[in-house]
């Protein structure tokens, strides 16, 4: 039971956190595609499966946080869907980073009470 409750809480927490992670990645790159974003997340210790990431990217695209375009690699192969920051994502990111930092500080303060 405890594990299940933790998983539920963790799942809720990750939703917003993953959006922030994706925006942060794309703020440092012109654009990136699903698999590359997944690899960058894993390199940073953020474990996420593709069944979660790809729908998330699609949702962020529909919300205007991301823009996307299709590009065929020069070396050939299937076209890839690339994402870059949209207008909404560009304006949300600094606010989200600030909120995240505030939350960390709050937790630090609460731990000292």
């Amino acid at each position, binding site marked *: 039971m405890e594990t299940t409750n933790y998983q539920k809480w963790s799942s809720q927490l990750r939703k917003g956190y993953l959006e922030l992670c994706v925006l942060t990645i794309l703020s440092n790159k012109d654009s990136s595609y699903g698999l590359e974003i997944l690899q960058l997340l894993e390199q940073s210790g953020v474990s996420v*499966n593709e*069944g979660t990431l790809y*729908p998330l990217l699609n949702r962020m695209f*529909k919300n205007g946080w991301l823009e996307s375009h299709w590009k065929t690699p020069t070396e050939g192969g299937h076209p890839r*869907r690339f994402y870059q920051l949209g207008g909404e994502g560009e304006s949300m990111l600094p606010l989200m980073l600030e909120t995240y930092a505030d939350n960390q*500080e709050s937790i630090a*303060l609460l731990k000292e009470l």
Partner: protein
Amino acid sequence: MNNDQYISKLKKALAGLDRAERDEVIMEIQSDAAESDKDLFERFGSPSELAENYLEGEALRATVQDKVTSTGKKIFLWMGVGLTALIGATIFSFWQLSGDDFDYSNELAEELNVDDSDWSSMEWDSPVNIEVSQGAAVFYWHKEARIHWNCRGSFYLRKTQKQQKIRHTQCLVFLPMQDTTLAVKQGSIVIVRPQTSLNLSVEQGSLRIAENGEQYRYKLSEESSHIGGLNSQENANITLSIRAIEGSVEAYEYR
């Protein structure tokens, strides 16, 4: 289940999306499938689970759109905003009408003992920027590189924030001698013998200044505001730059 079967099941499960979006989702998954030797089931989970994740966003968007676009809901939303503003304004007005808790210009008042347990403190050696919104604050200055504060409600200093906000509460605050910007919106602030030049902004609120014998040069810009009782000295070392819009700026008197 091989990848072709997976895609076929996924297409059916994504029937809830519009065609263009569904085609794009399928194309993206097929494209990335080619880059890994793992099968799609292993990477993405079952077709129904994956479709659920795509459609979850769609269901949430539809729900939000329904709430936002229906006229009745919009009215309710604005009523909520209005009520919150009214409560804030009422609290602020009540505080104003009830008078000062003590003579704020008295820098020796026992209420200003920062060693008392009601006070909080944080090291601060950088510029200060505070907005008082639908609340009230009294500011003092000291030589320490710290901010001390004592508030009736919640207030936390956050170094990561460019501007600190005192909202829906009343505070006594000691500030360090740093570049300071104070803004008041629909609230009230008192500044007591400031020891550094200040940038002050008053919007539909009030600023009262207790000079306590100190000399100040006032640079005032006002619009539809009441300004009174200030004595600007051109040779003063400390400049108080004040911008007032529909506000009140006057010398402090205990009331």
